[in-house]
């Protein structure tokens, strides 16, 4: 039988689980304050189209272009849609408050979700490339998304939403340096780095 030398050396170094650093002990940094108004605006904008459609139907019914029954239903529909849009906006605001992130020495942590919550931890050594993306609305609020790609298909992508431009730039730069360091060393482990965590900002 053959052996896999590096892994076997590594295997001897396994520590007791309770002596390992616990990701739960990390104090996470909330996303940029501008993310909340952005999320609420985006949630409301998404409902403008159906609301507009109902308004048009209402106007058309008033003008006699469509059956009057439809016109009678329009206020009910408009009210229902408005309530849904408002709930959605409140939900987006709560969701924005729950979103948080942190950089540790060797990984990136991102927490999101209100009812269905998710914490994702990506080791720097596993990130293949990083990119920042921002839509027109995000740019208006001075926000950007940071996308980290790892192996494992689409399930292996992490999107950190709600970073301000400067933080996203610094994190991206930091991650790229860590990826390069890892490759230069031929190993994932490298010396301690100054983490550009939001807390330093």
């Amino acid at each position, binding site marked *: 039988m053959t052996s896999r030398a590096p892994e076997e050396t590594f295997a001897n170094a396994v520590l007791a689980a309770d002596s390992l650093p616990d990701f739960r002990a990390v104090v996470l940094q909330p996303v940029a304050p501008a993310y909340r108004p952005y999320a609420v605006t985006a949630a409301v904008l998404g409902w403008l189209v159906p609301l507009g459609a109902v308004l048009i139907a209402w106007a058309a019914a008033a003008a006699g272009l469509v059956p009057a029954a439809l016109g009678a239903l329009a206020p009910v529909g408009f009210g229902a849609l408005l309530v849904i849009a408002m709930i959605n906006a409140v939900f987006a605001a709560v969701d924005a408050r729950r979103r948080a992130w942190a950089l540790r020495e060797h*990984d990136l942590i991102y927490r999101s979700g209100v009812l269905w919550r998710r914490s994702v931890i990506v080791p720097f050594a596993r990130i293949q490339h990083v990119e920042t993306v921002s839509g027109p609305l995000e740019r208006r609020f001075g926000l950007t998304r940071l996308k980290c790609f790892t192996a494992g298909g689409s399930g292996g992508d992490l999107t950190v939403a709600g970073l301000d431009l400067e933080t996203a730039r610094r994190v991206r730069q930091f991650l790229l340096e860590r990826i390069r360091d890892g490759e230069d060393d031929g190993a994932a482990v490298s010396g301690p780095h100054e983490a550009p965590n939001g807390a330093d900002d």
Partner: protein
Amino acid sequence: MPTTDPSDAWQRLPPIALVFLVVRALQKFVRENLVVFLGAGAGVAFVERLGVREVLLGASLVVLIVVAGAIIYHRRFRFLVEDDAVRVRRGVLERKELRVRFSRVQNVQLGEPLYLRPFGLVQFSLETPGAAEREVELPGIPRRLAEEIRDRIVGARAAAGAAATPGDEQAEPAAGSSARDIGSPPALLHAPGRVRVFVHGLSSNQVWVVAGVVLYVLDLVFRQTADSLAMTQLVSWLEAQFSAGWSTLLPLVGAVLAGLLAAGGSAALLRFHPYRLHDHGERLVGSGGLLERREQTLRRDKLTGAVLQQSPVGRLLGCWVLAGLQTRSDGRGGDVGQHSFLVPGLRAEDLGLVGLLYPGAAVPARFEPIHPRYRSWWLVRGFLVVTGLLGLLLATSGREHGAVLPLTLLLVLLPPLVWLRWRHWGWWLDRTVIWVRRGLFGQRLEAFELAQVQQVQLRSSPYLRRHGLVRLVLVLPQGLVQLPFLSEDRAAALANQALFAAETARRHRV
């Protein structure tokens, strides 16, 4: 070897490769359009409307287009084997040129279809971690050339080790190198006999998929020819059998079942027999196949996990299948499919083979169960959904509706089914290798090193949080592995261990 020669030049495929290209293009066309054609009886309506002559004309046109496409593809196809890479130029409408470094290749396959055998030609293909499908295919190249490329690919690491380039993946330490690499003969790891391979075929799920397709096609043919004399006679014969009771019906059903199983077993024999798995140190080689001889070469250092699988029939027959897992860009590397590195025909006593394929992995004697709340969660929701459906059906259609009986049966079977599913969920951490088991009637045991973890996710719903539970998701190069209903502390401990392993491993990105 042309590549070491200074007169390196782009090479073309031999004319016989055209046969392969046409056959493959037709297969692809049929595979991609069969569902559309058969779906919802559209094909039947189409044939009825146009008539047989028009359909045949259309089919001829399709064949013509496919053949013309294959000819253009063949004429334009060029490849060049360099010292450390292979380059390919191809494409019909869009020209594509790609260069694949040998150090990136994770497995190589040599196929020898019947029609290429007399010419001493083989079909060569390779896969890299970035591609969902085979990245390079060279159909109909001389066996000697294919073997030389294969040996270069496998030797790429050793060669790279001497001239280690910083930052290059080739600088990885040569894992798995042993005395066997230096001239000693390869070790035979597994050689199942004819019977084992046949049993593998019996237990393969493919038999039932094929049976489903055959039944569907038969149904369509039946509808088309229902009025013809032969079909009327067949129907009356079948009706006679049904009315004669179980005594004549049972042998008939038995014969159909036996025929299906025999077909499955024979298909496995055709594909695998005489199967041999050899350990060449840095690479594993699986070979076999009666009509098309296939040889799969897997680079050991590119293995990201192993899976042992047993279908429900396989469980009855005591038959396992082992597969090596590798990186897939579509995250579906965990699926054991036609192109996987499959080791067929394992018995319970052969399971130690997993440790030879994936060093460090030994099937654990026991598994840690997931939380029992998994059962109550599924039971309550299952009952609610099924009784809801049942109530709706009874209220609208009455007891006569065809779905009432199956739904009632499902209601009765729900508790044992949920219990069985829960019992199969389990995990075990053996030093650095973690095993995850799941299944219902069959079972699947996946093993991977914690250091392979690319990302750790902890997901929770309000229900799970109320009971202090989470779903742990480990993203691996081959795809996602999930462990539902773990206690928060247990999941966090596993997550911390996985992160520690991934962050301290001296292993490069895949």
